[in-house]
């Protein structure tokens, strides 16, 4: 069968080569032979491949003529391709919004308040069954926060959400519900010893086995010089997927941060929150971006938590200074992705476009070229103060979890 010059690579060397391949090709290669199918579908390979993945993609909901659709494009193309406009690909998932992302899976929800959720893998196009929401005691008010996370111990994906039930003088009362997404999805209620608090980051940031949201404690509000302004102390609300317990983490600087501008009727809940910091995952670290108003520097400051859970390990990783043209004091900016060589993709309400790329070595700020024939970037929702994170970055994976 083989000439003497031919040599066959043993399986373990072949597996190493497969780790470099993109997800779509790996799906094809499942048909090579039974051993390859078994290996490519194995949990170990799938997770290893996901961790090695160098194909980050940007996804967002777009308001098309027929309603919502989900669009995606290559992050590498946005960062590095200065010559050709980046192509945007519609995924043809209608009427659903992205409410979380984890291990290459997107969590799509329908309805507001949520009626049901679906897990979707944009790389393999695997779609889960639709899971209806089960609110305890018909408590289906608008969600305060939500998130998709992964319980590594049990190899299960879980969706957690929380809605307001009643607003009392002291703060909010509420319950969090967790759905374990397996062949028999089940919802349960989880305790909340942290209340009361308000959160902003509607869709949680998943890192290190936990979901994270920016929150503030209304009992700690302090007055500012201006009688129509309160100073708020932010913290990070955490939810550990394995233990299903809530916790909190301190921000890099332990002092009052945000400001709440109250309307003349002095009603806290309809105030206007200024300069809320944003949480993200950058280079696999939990990351927070502060807007310049906080520390009176003329730059956005991005911190990363080098060791998750260790508050002393907050470190500044990047500063984006004002440059008088694109980055000015009037903007707000949210980091989306940082490459190995520290080039940043960010989103904000800039004058000319919504996305920007910051290359700190060249002190260069550019708007990446988008192929507008495929989408005019009419991102839904359009306003900063609407629900949800607009953009999600996911890394390719072959993950699927239940039929």
């Amino acid at each position, binding site marked *: 069968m*083989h000439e003497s*010059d*031919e*040599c*066959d*690579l043993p399986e373990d*060397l*072949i597996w*190493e*080569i497969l*780790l*470099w*391949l993109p997800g*779509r*090709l790996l*799906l*094809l*290669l*499942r*048909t*090579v*032979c*039974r051993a*390859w*199918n078994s290996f490519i579908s194995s949990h170990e390979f799938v997770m290893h491949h996901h961790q090695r993945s160098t194909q980050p993609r940007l996804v967002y909901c777009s308001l098309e003529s027929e309603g919502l659709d989900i669009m995606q494009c290559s992050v590498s193309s946005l960062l590095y391709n200065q010559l050709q406009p980046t192509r945007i690909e519609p995924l043809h998932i209608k009427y659903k919004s992205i409410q979380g992302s984890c291990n290459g899976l997107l969590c799509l929800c329908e309805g507001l308040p949520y009626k049901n959720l679906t897990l979707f893998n944009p790389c*393999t*196009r695997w779609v889960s069954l639709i899971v209806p929401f089960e609110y305890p005691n018909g408590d289906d008010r608008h969600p305060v926060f939500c998130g998709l996370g992964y319980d590594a111990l049990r190899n299960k994906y879980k969706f957690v959400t929380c809605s307001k039930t009643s607003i009392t003088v002291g703060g909010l009362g509420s319950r969090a519900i967790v759905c374990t997404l397996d062949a028999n999805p089940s919802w349960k209620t989880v305790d909340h010893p942290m209340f009361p608090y308000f959160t902003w980051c509607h869709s949680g940031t998943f890192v290190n086995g936990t979901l994270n949201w920016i929150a503030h404690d209304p009992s700690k509000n302090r007055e500012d010089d201006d009688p129509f302004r309160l100073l708020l102390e932010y913290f990070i609300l955490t939810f550990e997927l394995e233990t299903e317990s809530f916790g909190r983490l301190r921000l890099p600087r332990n002092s009052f941060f945000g400001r709440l501008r109250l309307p003349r009727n002095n009603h806290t809940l309809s105030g206007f929150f200024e300069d809320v910091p944003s949480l993200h995952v950058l280079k696999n670290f939990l990351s927070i971006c502060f807007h310049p108003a906080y520390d009176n520097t003329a730059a956005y400051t991005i911190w990363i938590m080098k060791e998750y859970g260790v508050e002393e390990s907050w470190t500044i990783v990047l500063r984006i200074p004002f440059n008088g043209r694109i980055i000015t004091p009037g903007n707000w900016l949210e980091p989306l992705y940082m490459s190995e060589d520290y080039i940043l993709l960010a989103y904000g309400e800039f004058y000319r476009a919504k996305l920007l790329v910051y290359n700190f070595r060249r002190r260069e700020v550019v708007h990446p070229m988008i192929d507008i024939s495929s989408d005019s970037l009419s991102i839904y929702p359009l306003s900063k103060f609407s629900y949800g994170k607009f953009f999600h970055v996911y890394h390719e994976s072959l993950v699927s979890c239940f039929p």
Partner: protein
Amino acid sequence: MSGISDTERMITLKTVEGTLFDVKSSIAKDLKTVQAFIDDSDDDVTSPIPLPNVFTRELSRILDYLNNHHRFRSGIEKADEEMARYDAEFAKSMSHEELKALILAANYLNVKDLLEFLNQTVADVIQNKSVEFVRNFFGIENDYTPEEEEKLRNENEWAFNGVEQD
């Protein structure tokens, strides 16, 4: 301690065909299997180290790669571009069989960076090829029945578009 510095020390390697290669010890460090052998020996290694699984053609290529990469790294700024050009030429200069043989040798000698580069090169080769091409490349027999294969393909219908047909 002898007056000769560590980087000048030469190690001799012997391939399957009996060819001898003199290698600087700084280069030999990248051949982790060889380095382990040296570390395990109580005395200085003077006689040639036999490499029963490595052929002359492969060892020659590996040493060429390592020598060049050492040169690029110790040089000045512009090395990145030169190194990329060298790597591209290096990859192109081999047939598929030679590529596989080199992977086996690099794996045996435990030359990490080169092995990773070779794996990526093979990944590039099979990028847009058909399933049959991949089977031939790795010498794998298809143990699916036609019905089973058809069923699997249908499950991932969309992924097969835009790829060379068998």
